[in-house]
């Protein structure tokens, strides 16, 4: 017969009774075993609590589950055989709930006392009762400055009524990695994150959007935010009222914007320098039009011209004018585009560039142009001593290994790796989204101080993530593998522990901000 066992703890001055789910039976620091109570339900990733005598408590996290039994394996196999072979269908052990049970492997992640949470340096009391966590156990979790919402704290698959925020300014300055395989909710996460900071002017975010999914051209998206009109700029080559056209004047493109994005030989790089020295801002136009470059081998110039034309989609029409197949570059218009984007970011606005019609190289080049120039401006602000007054600027890049993998970096660094390495000195951050963490060098991963880990079934990828996490996650391999869609573990230098969260579905999340205004007849003068 089952007995309901309750444990008592104090919450907000009240004694609360909670059902016991198990008891600590053995283990060592970081590897504690709990015998699960027979009618209790403990899941991988569950947060459990052990109350201490001094009014404090320890929070434990389940990272593995296994069977335990007081009966020898041979006897177990015999009884099992008799049952399944039909010799004695109702055969059972005496006091089965006492003799067979589940053992949960847990690690202590926090000791909490009087609202202060610390990393545990002691073991919870042996044979002590364990209960599920409640919202009040996480009352020390407070809303930081520049709150960026990530989801609700989760215990296993149970979602708690505790919202998880990070300080966007700190997090973005120190770079973010979002590792996950396809379909685990990366873009949903980014939309929720950016939505929650859309009206925070301390955070300027540039999103390179290769799938045109963040703005919400065809469904719900960041455009539906109440402040989107003021704080969100959407650049798309597709006709859409209110959007901006991502067209960059060729005179704004500098040779160094190509560094690490397009591979040039030394001779070609020199030719580019010669072009710039001779034609100044018109250097690209000069190359595209095949103008003479002193001391440059005509063959080198011809190859360079073809490479530039192919990369940027340029050609010279029958009237001798430069045209761009992708309409992304122009020698006549788009002079203010870069300035507009930089000003928006510098004002803490969010800028989405729909790169779905761009080639990979053009997408990365556009990001490179913007980030080179923002870095240049921010270096200036640092020199002037006004950097701290400026918002943090972060660029969100999908398929980050294109610019951060060891292979991509063999030919030298690029602006994205520069930002990962030294951007934080200038309040410039990188938010890298990737399916393949393992091919990003550890030196780069080590600089990504916040990782929002979504489900990943690939063991080498999990290993790379765990090895570079801010907290010790070596026991969390299974927990990461078992993360369902929308579930994540947030490992950050700015959290006291690796926080399991449930990211809400964007469409549900934004319902709480429903700001449907009645149609107002517009007053017209003019």
């Amino acid at each position, binding site marked *: 017969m089952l007995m309901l066992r309750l444990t008592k703890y104090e919450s907000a001055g009240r004694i609360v009774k909670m059902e016991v789910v198990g008891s600590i039976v053995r283990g060592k620091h970081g590897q504690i075993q709990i015998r699960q109570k027979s009618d209790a339900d403990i899941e991988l990733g569950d947060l459990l609590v052990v109350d201490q005598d001094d009014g404090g408590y320890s929070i434990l996290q389940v990272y593995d589950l296994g069977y335990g039994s007081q009966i020898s394996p041979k006897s177990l196999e015999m009884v099992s055989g008799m049952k399944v072979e039909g010799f004695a269908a109702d055969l059972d052990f005496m006091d089965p709930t006492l003799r067979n049970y589940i053992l949960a492997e847990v690690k202590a992640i926090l000791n909490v006392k009087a609202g202060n949470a610390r990393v545990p340096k002691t073991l919870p009391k042996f044979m002590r009762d364990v209960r599920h966590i409640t919202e009040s156990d996480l009352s020390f979790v407070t809303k930081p400055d520049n709150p960026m919402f990530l989801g609700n704290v989760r215990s296993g698959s149970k979602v708690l009524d505790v919202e998880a925020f990070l300080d966007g300014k700190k997090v973005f300055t120190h770079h973010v990695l979002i590792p996950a395989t396809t379909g685990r909710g990366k873009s949903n996460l980014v939309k929720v994150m950016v939505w929650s900071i859309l009206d925070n002017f301390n955070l300027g975010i540039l999103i390179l959007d290769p799938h045109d999914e963040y703005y919400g051209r065809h469904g719900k998206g960041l455009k539906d935010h109440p402040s989107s009109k003021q704080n969100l700029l959407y650049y798309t080559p597709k006709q859409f009222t209110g959007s901006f056209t991502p067209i960059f004047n060729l005179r704004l493109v500098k040779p160094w914007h190509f560094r690490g994005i397009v591979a040039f030989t030394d001779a070609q790089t020199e030719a580019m320098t010669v072009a710039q020295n001779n034609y100044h801002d018109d250097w690209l136009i000069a190359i595209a039009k095949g103008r003479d470059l002193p001391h440059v081998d005509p063959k080198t110039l011809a190859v360079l011209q073809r490479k530039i034309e192919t990369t940027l989609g340029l050609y010279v029409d029958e009237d001798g004018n430069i045209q761009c197949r992708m309409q992304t570059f122009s020698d006549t218009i788009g002079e203010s585009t870069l300035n507009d984007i930089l000003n928006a970011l510098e004002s803490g606005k969010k800028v989405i560039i729909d790169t779905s019609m761009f080639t990979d190289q053009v997408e990365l080049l556009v990001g490179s142009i913007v980030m080179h120039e923002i870095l240049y401006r921010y270096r200036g602000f640092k020199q002037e001593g006004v950097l701290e007054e400026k918002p943090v600027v972060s660029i969100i890049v999908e398929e980050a290994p294109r610019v951060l993998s060891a292979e991509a970096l063999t030919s030298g660094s690029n602006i994205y790796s520069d930002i990962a390495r030294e951007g934080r000195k200038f309040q410039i951050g990188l938010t890298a989204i990737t399916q393949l963490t393992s091919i990003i060098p550890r030196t780069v991963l080590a600089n990504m101080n916040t990782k929002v880990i979504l489900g990943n079934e690939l063991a080498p990828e999990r290993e790379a993530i765990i090895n570079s996490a801010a907290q010790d996650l070596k026991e969390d391999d299974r927990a990461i593998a078992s993360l369902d869609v929308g579930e994540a573990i947030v490992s950050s230098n700015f959290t006291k522990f690796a926080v399991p969260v449930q990211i809400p579905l964007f469409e549900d999340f934004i319902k709480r901000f429903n700001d449907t205004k009645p149609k107002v007849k517009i007053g017209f*003068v003019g």
Partner: protein
Amino acid sequence: MFRFAHLADCHLGAWRDAKLKELNLEAFNRALDLSVKEKVNFIIISGDLFHVNIPDLGLVKTVVEKFREIREKGIEIYMVYGSHDYSPNVVSIVDILSSAGLFKKVVQAEAIEDHIRLQFLCDDDTGAKIVGLSGRSGSLEKEYFEALDINSLQDEDGFKIFVFHSAVNELKPISTASMESVPLSYLPPGFNYYAGGHIHKRVWENVKGYGVIAYPGPLFGATFTDLEDTARGERRGFYVVDFDGELVKTSKFIEIMVSEVIYKELDGEGKTAKQVEKHLLDLTTKIDASGNIVLIRVRGTLSSGRVGDIDFTQVRDLLVEKGATYVFINRVALTTEAATSVTLPGESVEEIERRLLNEVVSSFKVDSTLPPRVQKVLKERLTEQKGTELARQLLSVLKAEPLQDEKKREFENRVLQETLKVLKLEELE
């Protein structure tokens, strides 16, 4: 084949100096005379005909006479307001002239709930269908662009012209990068010609999905920056466009040059006040000032002496003696070491005011302890472009001076009423 002229940004009445005022008017008259000579069927003026909404009446009289002369030749004039000659509070002279039948305002709008439907005007002579949106100070016309019923505009067939007075982000030159603007996507697609005003540089671009988007720029210029650009080679004038009833066929830019502008820069960095003065005097001997406008910009930080120690009057007098039509020495960017923080680019008073107000408004933070509803209203009205515009309007109202014979109490009451109106607080009266 039909033909029209496209002018913009005449800014009549922009200059205080009589000579510059006269040259500006001369450029305007010349543009209209040349339009007649080019046998245009009609003329489009894309806003900012006048520099202010109620200009000097003597100037208005001259313009009325010129327009009447054009109208008597059977040439129709189509126009929108610009950001300068429009006022939300009082009747503009443009309204009066339009009511008198001197030209047609092409903004025929109907507000239907949350959107705006524009009605085309059909030019009797050519069948061209013309429609437009006026400019408003601080690009407040953005909300009208947002609310435009694009479909009704696209569905109209024939040769269509869209007249507007707004900078377009994708087309504005780098030198006007800080200018408020609207994205290209706000323009209704499918027109044959987009007759733009507001950008003081010449732009002619055939944009995919649209058509020709053109800005002729000012005929003379309204600021010293404009005149500097002229001196640097920016051509001033207007477009003459030929069309066959369906497509733009050919076009040409007709240059208006009423006076040559000579622009010189002098770097005073590290020099003493006396050295700068000497350089300026030397410069006067090298300038062919006769019949020309002379602009000199002096910049840098003096190593010793004060800006006031330099005898600019003597330099100016020398150039006038040499026959200069007008001399302006811009020394705003010239400072002494003790006053390096007071540096402002030499722009018009209005531009400087706007820049300073922008700075102040951008540093304004809504108190986060206020109720969310109040925060929202404050953010909407006091931040960003709307905040700057409100501040600018307030400044304009508070700068008012008593009218002749106006009693003090009446004056105070008038300013109060205007202020409440700007703040949209009339109900508190």
